[in-house]
């Protein structure tokens, strides 16, 4: 259990990540807003509490690593990294501008703090498994966190990687499935029904939990459980809302990628800032 104070701090950080995400997407005028906002809370707990990182030493081999296999959530990851000091906050506004270090999809060679290049969906699952295996063989005391989208798991490679992770007993791997129920064309249940994700992950040999993925306390508790080691990889199915935190985005059906006018962006940012202010300094 976390203290009230800690919870509040992480809620503030989550709001700041949402603000940074909105600032970046507003500056470009369009972007992957839905799937970025849904992972803001888990990003807050990861970068605010759980992960062993040092922004001044981003290549430290023993660091915890995040593979954002749903690479289009880049804007939210960039916001978290900027807020942690990996690069100047103002740089967020260069998202997808010519020559930027912040492309739509995560790129380990462009952005300080990004641990793996992703974008072609499914691939981050295997690279994360490889990183977990490599760090395990090198006897590093760290963990690999992996974001996978619920739409992304349509990709067969994801299940190859899950089988591999369990077979090789990669208990330093924590899979976080962003079950926001929607993909580009609509609801996942109407496009390719993923069925019972919790049962599937358990059947694949994962130590599996299912939580409200937009609830800071539940995220903290679930992540704490994944520190236990053992001989199974961990999975947390995050029950999330696509676009979480900005009502208008939540209520937009096609919110995978949206156009945003500067006025609309300002409106959203003002809203988020008011919520942030309400939580105090």
């Amino acid at each position, binding site marked *: 259990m976390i203290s009230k104070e800690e919870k509040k701090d992480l809620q503030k950080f989550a709001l700041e990540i949402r603000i940074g995400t909105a600032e970046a997407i507003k500056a470009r005028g369009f972007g992957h807003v839905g799937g970025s906002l849904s992972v803001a809370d888990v990003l807050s707990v990861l970068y605010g509490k759980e992960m062993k990182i040092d922004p001044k030493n981003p290549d430290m081999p023993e660091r915890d690593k995040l593979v954002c296999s749903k690479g289009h959530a880049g804007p939210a990851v960039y916001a978290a990294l900027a807020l942690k000091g990996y690069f100047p906050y103002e740089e967020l506004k260069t998202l997808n501008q010519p020559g930027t270090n912040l492309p739509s999809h995560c790129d380990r060679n462009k952005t300080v703090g990004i641990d*793996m290049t992703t974008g*072609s969906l499914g691939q981050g699952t295997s690279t994360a498994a*490889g990183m977990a295996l490599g760090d395990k063989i090198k006897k590093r005391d760290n963990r690999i966190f992996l974001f996978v989208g619920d739409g992304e798991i349509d990709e067969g490679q994801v299940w190859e990687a899950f089988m591999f992770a369990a*077979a090789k007993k990669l208990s330093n791997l924590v899979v976080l499935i962003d079950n926001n129920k929607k993909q580009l064309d609509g609801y996942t249940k109407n496009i390719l029904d993923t069925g019972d994700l919790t049962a599937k992950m358990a059947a694949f040999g994962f130590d599996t939990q299912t939580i409200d993925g937009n609830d800071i306390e539940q995220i903290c508790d679930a992540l704490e459980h994944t520190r236990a080691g053992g001989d199974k990889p961990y999975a947390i199915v995050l029950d999330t809302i696509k676009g979480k935190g900005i009502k208008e985005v939540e209520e937009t059906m096609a919110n995978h990628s949206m156009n945003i006018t500067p006025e609309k962006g300002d409106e959203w940012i003002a809203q988020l800032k008011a919520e942030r202010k309400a939580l105090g300094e």
Partner: protein
Amino acid sequence: MKTVYNGEMDSRLFKDVLGATIPALAKEDPDVIYLDADLMSCIGTAKWANENPEKAINCGIAEANMAGVACGLAATGFKPIMHTFGPFASRRCYDQVFMSGGYAKNAITILGTDPGVCAAFNGGTHMPFEDMALYRALPEATVIDIADANQLISVLNQSKDLPGVKYIRVGRKSAAKIYEDGATVPIGKGVTIREGKDAVVFAAGIMLHEAMQAAEMLAKENIEIAVIDMFTVKPLDEDCVIKYAQQTGAVVTAENHNKIGGLYSAVSEVLSRKQPTPVEYVAVEDEYGEVGPQDYLQKRYNLTADHIADKVRTVLKRK
């Protein structure tokens, strides 16, 4: 480096050379790690792999995942060598190698065995005539078609420390001996196996031996051809191509691959721009493979010494 070609076959099978070289590299360099997709037994690494579970990872029949895992291992400081048959080492995991490997700058060595007609009794499904074309199109990739056992050992020793994606295609049977034991065969350099003034044949992989046989046949007609081992199809040794095109004025390429996208393409791309010269090819005519013994398939797809000699006679008329 000395070449020792006299037409005799090497007593070693490529698969045995792989089975000895991969464990040796892993022993000598703690960062070398070997991955396979359930084909360890085909290259003689299975026993060693069972005894060295932290050096050799069997990924099961899941090549896309294997490629990704290899890239993840590279990101944590390893020098992965992944193996499967050529079609699965190229077609089956191309997007994974493209993004998680090349684009993400994770250096990996990919071994694709049984290229082209070497797939023989596994047939057309297993017969890649397009693997070099695929990997040539990958920016910064290195593409190699192995002709000789000592060359294979030398290439593996170099490849593990090179950046980017390295794709090495090699058969599992034996081949004619070309390089002396212990030879260093530098990646990226064409090697002159035979000098000749009338035409040049740039050959790779199993076609090198055929080219040398063609040279003997043509010598009886007083046609002297140079034969170059162009085992590095990318990055191509452009200076070597231009030099021999200038010297002879007639070029033939020979490869166990589709005429599209492989050695013929690479050589033509250079010459068309820098040294326009008549070029003929010995390659597969944009067809799928089929089942059969390798000697039958070489005839079926026009990949023999006779075909090379014919193409030399043709190109000489265009001089």
